């Protein structure tokens, strides 16, 4: 009986029912492009302290010349199927699920 319960817990849910860790933990993500590839800043929209930290980091990156874009995409099996048009973010919006911070662009 116990082994059956443990086996049930270890079984992964089907692919179409799999949820992302962000949805389970309600963590929103800000991906920052940098020389290491990218670093990820997360915040909990239900936590004021977490939002304040994320806002502070957002403002710091804006001062460095970064541009912020909300990534409102619809994905299916890990592949983007629809990209919804969004404008650039000039102010931090804690309700956005995923934000991409792009460094300053220069003409070549």
């Amino acid at each position, binding site marked *: 009986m116990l082994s059956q319960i443990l086996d049930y817990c270890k079984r992964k849910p089907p692919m179409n029912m799999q949820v992302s860790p962000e949805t389970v933990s309600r963590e929103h993500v800000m991906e920052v492009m940098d020389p290491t*590839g990218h670093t990820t800043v997360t915040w909990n929209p239900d936590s004021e302290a977490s939002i304040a930290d994320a806002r502070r980091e957002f403002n710091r990156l804006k001062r460095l010349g970064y541009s912020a874009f909300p990534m409102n995409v619809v994905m299916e099996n890990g592949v*983007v199927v629809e*990209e919804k*048009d*969004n404008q*650039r973010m000039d102010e931090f919006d804690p309700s956005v699920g995923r934000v991409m911070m792009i460094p300053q662009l*220069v*003409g070549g």
Partner: protein
Amino acid sequence: MPINDFFISDVNQSLNTSQQALVSDCFIVPFITTAMPNPFFFTNSLTTGGTSSSFSGCTGGNITSATTIIFPSPVVMNEIVIDEDDLMNNQEYWELARQRGVQFRIRTAEERQRQEAEAARVRVEQERTAALRREAKDKSLALLIAHLTAEQRETFTRNKWFVVIGGQSKKKYRIRADGSLNSNIDEMHGDRVVSRICCHCLHDIPLYDNYLAQKIALMKDERRFLSIANRHAA
């Protein structure tokens, strides 16, 4: 012909009669200088002089001419005294040379070890930097692929480019992801390349992050992207 007459006759040809009379009153003695290998010869000089009337062209003045005769003379050097206490015999000299050889080899070996250690340290640092750069590149590639549609993934995998639609103008832009950031964006009109656009992040950002930044900026902030970019002819 005496050597004085030789020189006097040579000079007389360039002077008038009054000057010729003056020249005959003086000695013109040539001096011969040679490059003496022996540094111990010094020169002594003997000077004779005479006073005569003025040359033509000068008014009311007396001119004093002088003749200098230079001849070498030998000089006797002081005797060199050798202190025998400072001398070494052959055996001592050999021992000293041997010790110096040993010191040189030790110093050279220490120097070589130091250089090898430094080279090894530099090599380790370079490998570490290269590993970090590879890791960053792989991470950026994964991020780019995660933000491509199925069609973009296919063209990127097959041809190393993908097409993006401009967010405001709805124009087609082909981003060539073949390893270069130099004018890698083609503005398309159908299948024809109208112009090439160059705009990218700073060079310390990994390559595939640059391509993703170009894609996102074209889709979401096209006007600002084009205002920053440089446009070149196709």
